[in-house]
């Protein structure tokens, strides 16, 4: 499989020009739900593919943590899009999005129980079998938690890795949010990620409101996620990492400076990693 590298950015129409001009962008991630099922891809995206910029296809509506198996039509659509884009991999979430005929419009956490983990793993294996490229799964953030958790967030990730063939898309902004809102043990989560099972990393901005941290993808990047990125790199060595921005798009210089802060965290983490190895 082709691998990802460097610093990337989530492709959005509003950022297409910036991305087209950005020097040295390692890869882009495209939202599956924003692409047409048939017909032409956005021209700016086609050009990126032709230039050979590696692309990841990112889905938000599969709901692999749901009680129902993933929809065959949704999987087919993802598979076709992945082929058309020449995607390196497809990524989705460790979450459920619908139940009882209702769409939540959001990525909701799965209960951390043995039973829910079994259902999740079964759904994930079905998705893996239906996709033409490897699947990576992302940890999510939530303002609330399920009661009676049988294990930790770190153990949930390890459990999915043990039961399936997927890689992880570690979202350090979501991890930061979980630490702020639920006191999640970030060191344990970072330690649960083996380098060979890490596809890439998400970083995004958020905001603290009424005592809760909201992972908005619409506010400046705080220190927390960058520190987690640096710690991760200090442990594993350089990893592919990208910025997600979905709303309130900042001027180009601000976006460039956020990408630079990702590069700085990567460099500093890699220095610590090398020092630890000598």
């Amino acid at each position, binding site marked *: 499989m082709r691998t990802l590298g460097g610093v990337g950015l989530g492709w959005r129409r509003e950022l297409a020009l910036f991305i087209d001009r950005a020097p040295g962008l390692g890869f882009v991630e495209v939202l599956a739900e924003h692409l047409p099922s048939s017909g032409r891809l956005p021209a700016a995206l086609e050009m990126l593919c032709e230039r050979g910029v590696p692309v990841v296809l990112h889905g938000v*509506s599969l709901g692999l943590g749901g009680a129902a198996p993933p929809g065959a039509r949704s999987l087919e659509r993802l598979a076709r899009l992945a082929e058309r884009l020449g995607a390196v991999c497809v990524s989705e979430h460790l979450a459920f999005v619908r*139940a009882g005929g209702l*769409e939540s419009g*959001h990525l*909701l956490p799965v209960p951390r129980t043995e039973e829910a983990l079994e259902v999740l793993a079964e759904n994930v294996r079905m998705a893996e079998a239906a996709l033409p490229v490897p699947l990576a799964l992302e940890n999510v953030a939530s*303002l*609330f938690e399920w*009661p009676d958790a049988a294990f930790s967030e770190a153990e949930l990730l390890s459990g999915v890795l043990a039961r399936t063939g997927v890689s992880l898309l570690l979202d350090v902004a979501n991890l930061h949010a979980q630490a702020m809102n639920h006191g999640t043990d970030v060191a344990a989560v970072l330690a649960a990620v083996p380098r060979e099972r890490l596809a890439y990393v998400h970083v995004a901005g958020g905001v603290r409101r009424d005592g809760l941290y909201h992972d908005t993808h619409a506010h400046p990047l705080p220190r927390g996620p960058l520190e987690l990125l640096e710690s991760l790199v200090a442990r594993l060595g350089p990893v592919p990492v990208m910025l997600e921005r979905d709303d309130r798009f900042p001027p180009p210089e601000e976006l460039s400076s956020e990408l630079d802060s990702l590069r700085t965290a990567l460099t500093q983490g890699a220095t610590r990693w090398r020092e630890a190895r000598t």
Partner: protein
Amino acid sequence: MSARARLARAQEELVRALGTGAPVPPGFDAERVRASALALLDKRRRLVQRAWPGLASALNTDFAPRFEAWAREHPMSVEPSPLADGRRFARALEAVGCLPASLTPLLQDFDARWRLTGEGELVPRRGLVLSLARVGEARRWRLVLRLPGGQGFTWWVSRGGGDSQGTGHRG
């Protein structure tokens, strides 16, 4: 009951609490679940506002409270699409006579391109579309013709007078 059935029931209770204001299932931090429900509603409203800037500006300060009241009663039952969500909201406003007349042309053009299914999904229209709508209380009518391939024409017609004027556009 199977593991999937048990999980389905637990997840449904939670999604109902989040989307419709149903009671928060036992064991959850009710305040946190409500904070999450508010954040979800806010996100849904912002997406519709972005997809339908004309609708939001015509309703002005009424937009947010009206949309949120409607959204609580109408949780999303198909894969979320802000375009479809906004169109369903406009239809609900129309049904209770609260749709600003200035929006008629916008909705007419939209409906010439898209059809809302019974399930609430948007399907692009193919083929020839001809639509006539009365705009406001004045006796003015707006005729829209959309050709297969997307080319569109608009005429304004006033009853009793020959001030018919036409414009053409592609899209």
